[in-house]
């Protein structure tokens, strides 16, 4: 590739990729659970995406493509290294999930929400984070290389786990404030 073409390619890539950095970063932060790893994950995503930019088909969703690049790096590299603190049986966890009517949304603390998401098992966390970034079920299935049924089931369970966790955190805060 000539120098001119290479510069054009870089310019186009930056124009498409940089506006997505906030989305990629906040997703990376919740996936890796720490700032240093999140920054590395985003940087690796940018570099790998740029390396394989020729494989991206212009006219299709660049956002979905670059999230897929990040998902693959997370699954293949970070997830293998990280110890997953969630060893609780899912079925045990789901038993006794409270009625969502009792959730006090307006009083939910940002840190509680982030913590509850970070405690979700990897596959649920990844699916749920892609969902919060506005991807359709079909796009999530494509990014995570799974089928629609699995995406729906993971989202359903992720919501239940989050609601349960947030309900208990909120209940504890109310009890402490009443002491």
């Amino acid at each position, binding site marked *: 590739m000539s120098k001119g073409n*290479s510069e054009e390619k*870089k310019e186009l*890539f*930056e124009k498409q990729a*940089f506006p997505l*950095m*906030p989305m990629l*970063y*906040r997703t990376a*932060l*919740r996936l890796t659970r720490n*700032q240093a790893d999140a*920054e590395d994950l*985003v*940087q690796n995503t*940018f*570099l790998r995406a*740029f*390396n394989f930019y020729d494989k991206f088909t212009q006219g299709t969703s660049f956002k979905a493509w670059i999230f897929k690049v990040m998902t693959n790096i997370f699954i293949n590299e970070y997830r293998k290294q990280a110890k997953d603190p969630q060893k609780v049986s899912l079925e045990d966890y789901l038993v006794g999930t409270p009625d*969502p*009517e009792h*959730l006090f*949304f307006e009083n*939910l603390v*940002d840190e509680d*929400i*982030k913590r509850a*998401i970070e405690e979700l098992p990897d596959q649920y966390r990844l699916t749920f984070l892609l*969902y*919060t970034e506005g991807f*359709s*079920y079909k796009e999530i299935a494509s990014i995570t290389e799974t089928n629609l049924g699995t995406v*729906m089931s993971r*989202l*359903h369970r992720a*919501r239940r786990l*989050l*609601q349960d966790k947030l309900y208990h955190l909120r209940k504890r805060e109310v009890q402490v404030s009443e002491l």
Partner: protein
Amino acid sequence: MSCEHLIEKLYLFIDGELSPEEECEIEAHLAECVQCLRIYGLELQFKRTIIQKLKCEEVPARLMERIRIALEAF
């Protein structure tokens, strides 16, 4: 449509994943069932709250710089 069937489809409705016909069925049920309407409101609020709270994360300036420098190397 029964309440049970609506609850099964509720998130597909909230997420815009249903066909226009199915959406109409859900809307018709919600217009008549206060109980389901309340659950719909809570689930919608849950989704919006989570998305809104997650958006408050700033990208560190040094990360932007790191990536620009790394891309320069290509």
